[in-house]
């Protein structure tokens, strides 16, 4: 079972840097115990909360991207729930969504290339071609003009 999850947790502003690091080690320990992998860890630092959570107005945000099964996330979720230092957390499964995004992207590039070839243009956009500046996306072929139109 190899799924990709994103875990974001908000640590109470009273926590010291060591405590935040300690929480990360705790998560790491669970991941290692149950079997999984940490792909990425990102500390967003201290941010202002959009609303108060139990008298707190700020919080330290930490993002972790994990590979593993549902059991692993269940355990992490349970642990974070009982940890008082963590004032909010969110687990989102992202692998399926990412797959969809990649597929739409490659499909778009492909259609664009095909349509360009059908119009007798080179498959890839040439530098300085079409209306640049309007769209930065090179995969976009909507604004490419054939020679006769120019």
């Amino acid at each position, binding site marked *: 079972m190899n799924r990709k999850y994103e875990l*974001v947790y*908000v640590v109470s502003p009273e926590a010291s840097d060591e405590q935040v690091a300690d929480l990360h080690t705790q998560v790491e320990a669970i991941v290692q115990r149950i079997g999984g992998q940490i792909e990425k860890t990102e500390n967003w630092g201290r*941010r202002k*909360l*959009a*609303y108060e*959570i139990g008298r707190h107005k700020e*919080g330290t*945000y930490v*993002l972790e991207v994990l590979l593993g099964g549902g059991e692993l996330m269940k355990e992490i979720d349970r642990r974070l729930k009982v940890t008082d230092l963590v004032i*909010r957390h*969110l687990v*989102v499964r992202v692998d399926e*969504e*990412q797959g*969809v*995004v990649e597929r*739409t*992207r490659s499909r*778009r590039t492909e259609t664009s290339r095909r349509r360009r070839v059908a119009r007798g243009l080179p498959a890839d956009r040439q530098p300085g071609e079409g*209306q640049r500046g*309007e769209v930065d*996306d090179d*995969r*976009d072929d*909507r*604004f490419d003009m054939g020679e006769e139109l120019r």
Partner: protein
Amino acid sequence: MNGKKSFGGGGRGKGAAGQQGKDGQRRPMFRRRKVCKFCSDKIDDINYKDVRMLMPFVPERAKVLPRRISGTCALHQRKLRTAIMRARQLALIPYTTE
């Protein structure tokens, strides 16, 4: 923006532009056809972590901006809603303002 409308969007865009001409004669105010921001900018991934991207769709009262105003297409409005709800849970976006 104007250039976009005259070239783009294939058949659908052109049809709507023709209608607009008629409308324009009837009423003096010219209304621009709304386009989905995510479709035109080719943003496939509406992410809850990107608060800067979500903020224009969360007006003062912190409600989700309706489709009839933003012009977002159904697919992207649905994704946007999920992203906003997730961001709210993490206190990145408010649920409401006092």
